[in-house]
């Protein structure tokens, strides 16, 4: 089938050159996200249909400034382009160039051309260059570079057909090298070329640098880059056509005066964060309720319609709620990434880094860590996915690691019921509501723990790659809605398929634990409950509640709850709380539902007051006092602030770090922290 392989075209270019827009223009929704083997860099491929009907594969390589890699993303590009036997080695490379910034962008182009790879130069953003008074003679560039040059506008699609036409003609012939590097290490290169005569001198130079034959690689690289820039300057000077500027740069400078202002800058950033937070919290709630209702109705309908049995139970109570538990996160993911895509598209994200870098660096974080951390207050899952744009590996790992410590919206129902249960509904000094203060305290506790943990990790983790911040501050642009839309689709797809698998699997395991038990207790549940209720008056509903409660108390989950009782006893928890800890491992909010089942209440949401009253009336058999004391309540609250009770977060950490090391560390660290701090809390207040 080798002959049937489609032509592979790789898109290469600087960050902000419009490469991703071009990729979206060429492939539309025909995109696939995968991984480059062994690294945590996303591989985006797609299929493009040319005007003559031929279909070609398009590979979107990470943005890079030169073929001498300075980061993991850049290494991916260089590894592929230097290895002709790599399965991803392209037949043709399209180098996308930001024309308003042509000199810096051409450096990469000349390097790739000199490697001997067939290349097409796509001049993007010519309109922007026009507006700042820079125009270039394309014919002259084409002649001097001996390369097909196409003028495109990746934002509105103008010129895409021209590019497709050039691609139809197959790999363009390459003329002479832009810069003959033989002079940099002439003897060695000549010798190498004698042995491998198919290579270009530049390719030979890279082989020599990479196998260690050339010792002073820094000097060679510096010389290479300097000479190239010299030649590029000369060429661009020749091709330049003076035009009158309309002053686009100036308006970027004016906006920056406000957006990076020492007061306005932070106020506006806080306002933007507030809007994002509000949106994930409020706007996402109705589609989430809708998904929740549809799935619970569906599972109810299934269990009524299908013949009773294990398979129906598995479907209606294990699989369907499991899938629902995955889909329920989609509204939050979509909303957060809509905002993040807009911030990236407009160029504001670079200003966020600019404003926050100094503060965040103290804690081993990056300026870009702010958005994930704040989004973590709504939900850690989209927040962890949003760390993707932190280039530095160590800073990204720390951000992923500490984000789940921020109190997410799933903890709120747990906090609410516990606060209502043990904290008096009173005011201090006539103004502050104690219950409100405790809630605020729990959020603060999580936030401080995140910062503290980040600081500790900064001290103990190996640097990996050197942390530096040298990046372009792009001009402000209007967002391209198509790109925003495609980002949302991509993120939702990634989450549903990659993390979804694990989430569904764990939900099924937990369902088995909660619905089956040792011995005959569960099988004979109905008779046993009937027996216990004999002589009393009860409705069908009360009977069902008793039945559910009886089943749970005799399940494997209860068995586990009882067996962990010695471990959780020092925290003040009994086996009933133990069951809730186990079932809520899937998701924290399940705590309330489980408590409701244990206390035989039909629906937790409608009956929080009933649940509260039932929990309040529970008596400790040893002391005869109420079981839910202030100490126990606070201990449980502190436990839920820190505990990693969310398998979706673990699944997404696994997906984002491409391994089990980080999710396991996260689980161990957060559970340990939860245990120790709950223990301390219990002993202070008991």
């Amino acid at each position, binding site marked *: 089938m080798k002959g049937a392989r489609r032509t592979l075209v790789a898109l290469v270019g600087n960050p902000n050159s419009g490469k991703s827009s071009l990729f979206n223009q060429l492939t539309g929704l025909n995109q696939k996200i995968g991984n480059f083997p062994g690294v945590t860099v996303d591989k985006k491929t797609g299929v493009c249909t040319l005007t003559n009907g031929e279909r070609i594969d398009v590979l979107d390589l990470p943005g890079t*400034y*030169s073929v*001498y890699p*300075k980061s993991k993303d850049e290494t991916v590009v260089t590894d592929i382009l230097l290895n002709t036997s790599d399965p991803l080695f392209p037949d043709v490379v399209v180098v996308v160039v930001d024309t*308003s*910034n042509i*000199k*810096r962008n051409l*450096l990469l182009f000349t390097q790739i051309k000199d490697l001997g790879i067939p290349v097409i130069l796509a001049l993007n953003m010519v309109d922007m260059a026009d507006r*700042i008074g*820079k125009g270039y003679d394309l014919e002259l560039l084409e002649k001097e570079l001996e390369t097909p040059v196409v003028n495109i506008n990746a934002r509105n699609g103008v010129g895409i057909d021209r590019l497709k036409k050039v691609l139809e003609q197959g790999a363009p012939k390459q003329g002479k090298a832009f810069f003959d590097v033989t002079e940099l290490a002439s003897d060695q290169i000549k010798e190498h070329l004698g042995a491998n005569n198919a290579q270009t001198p530049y390719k030979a130079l890279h082989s020599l640098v990479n196998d260690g034959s050339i010792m002073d690689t*820094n000097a060679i*690289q*510096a010389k290479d*880059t*300097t000479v190239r*820039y010299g030649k590029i300057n000369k060429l661009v000077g020749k091709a330049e056509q003076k035009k009158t500027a309309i002053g686009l*740069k100036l308006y*970027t*400078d004016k906006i*920056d*005066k406000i957006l*990076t*202002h*020492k007061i306005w*800058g*932070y106020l506006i950033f806080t306002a933007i964060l507030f809007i994002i937070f509000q949106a994930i919290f409020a706007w996402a709630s109705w589609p989430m309720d809708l998904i929740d209702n549809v799935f619970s109705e569906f599972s109810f309908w299934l269990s009524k319609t299908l013949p009773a049995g294990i398979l129906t139970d598995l479907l209606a109570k294990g699989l369907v709620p499991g899938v629902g538990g995955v889909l329920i996160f989609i509204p939050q993911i979509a909303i957060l990434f809509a905002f993040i895509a807009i911030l990236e598209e407009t160029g504001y994200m*670079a200003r966020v*880094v*600019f*404003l926050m*870098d*100094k*503060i965040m660096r103290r804690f081993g974080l990056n300026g870009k860590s702010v958005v994930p951390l704040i989004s973590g207050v709504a939900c850690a899952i989209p927040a962890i996915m949003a760390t993707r744009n932190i280039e530095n590996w160590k800073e990204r790992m720390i951000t992923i690691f500490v984000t789940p410590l921020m109190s997410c919206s799933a903890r709120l129902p747990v906090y609410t019921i516990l606060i209502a249960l043990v904290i008096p509904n009173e005011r201090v000094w006539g103004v502050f509501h104690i219950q409100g203060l405790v809630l605020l305290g729990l959020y603060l506790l999580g936030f401080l723990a995140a910062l503290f943990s980040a600081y500790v990790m900064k001290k103990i983790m190996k640097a990996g790659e*050197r942390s*530096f*911040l*040298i*990046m*372009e*501050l*792009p*001009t402000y642009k209007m967002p391209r809605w198509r790109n925003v839309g495609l980002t949302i689709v991509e993120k939702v797809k990634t989450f549903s398929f990659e993390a979804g698998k694990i989430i569904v699997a764990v939900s099924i395991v937990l369902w088995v634990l909660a619905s089956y038990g040792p011995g005959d207790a569960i099988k004979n549940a109905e008779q046993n409950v009937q027996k216990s209720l004999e002589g009393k008056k009860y409705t069908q509903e009360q009977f069902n509640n008793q039945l559910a409660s009886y089943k749970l108390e005799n399940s494997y989950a209860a068995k586990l709850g009882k067996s962990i009782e010695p471990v959780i006893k020092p925290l003040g928890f009994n086996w009933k709380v133990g069951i809730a800890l186990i079932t809520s491992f899937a998701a924290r909010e399940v705590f309330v539902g489980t408590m409701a089942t244990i206390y035989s209440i039909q629906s937790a949401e409608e009956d929080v007051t009933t649940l509260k009253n039932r929990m309040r009336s529970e008596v400790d058999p040893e002391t005869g006092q109420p079981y839910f004391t202030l100490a126990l309540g606070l201990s449980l609250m502190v436990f839920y602030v820190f505990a990693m009770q969310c398998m979706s977060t673990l699944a997404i950490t696994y997906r984002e770090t491409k391994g089990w090391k980080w999710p396991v560390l996260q689980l161990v660290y957060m559970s340990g922290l939860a245990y120790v701090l709950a223990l301390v809390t219990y002993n202070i207040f008991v």
Partner: protein
Amino acid sequence: MNKAKTVGELKPGEKGTICCFKDDTLSLKLLDMGCLPGTTVEMKFSAPLGDPICIGVEGYSLLLRKAEANTISLV
């Protein structure tokens, strides 16, 4: 007196010409970004907390930390 000024010491609006680099590894990244010896750079503005800073090079804005800017000596 003879100590060469660095990019990190420029005041907003002030321009200078790059002479050389003090840090080998960083210099390669800076070269990639178009900061070559002989190039004119302009200090545009710094972040509210004084760090990082934004400089103008070859018609675009480059953001870098003060410590990194201090490795670029001026003529």
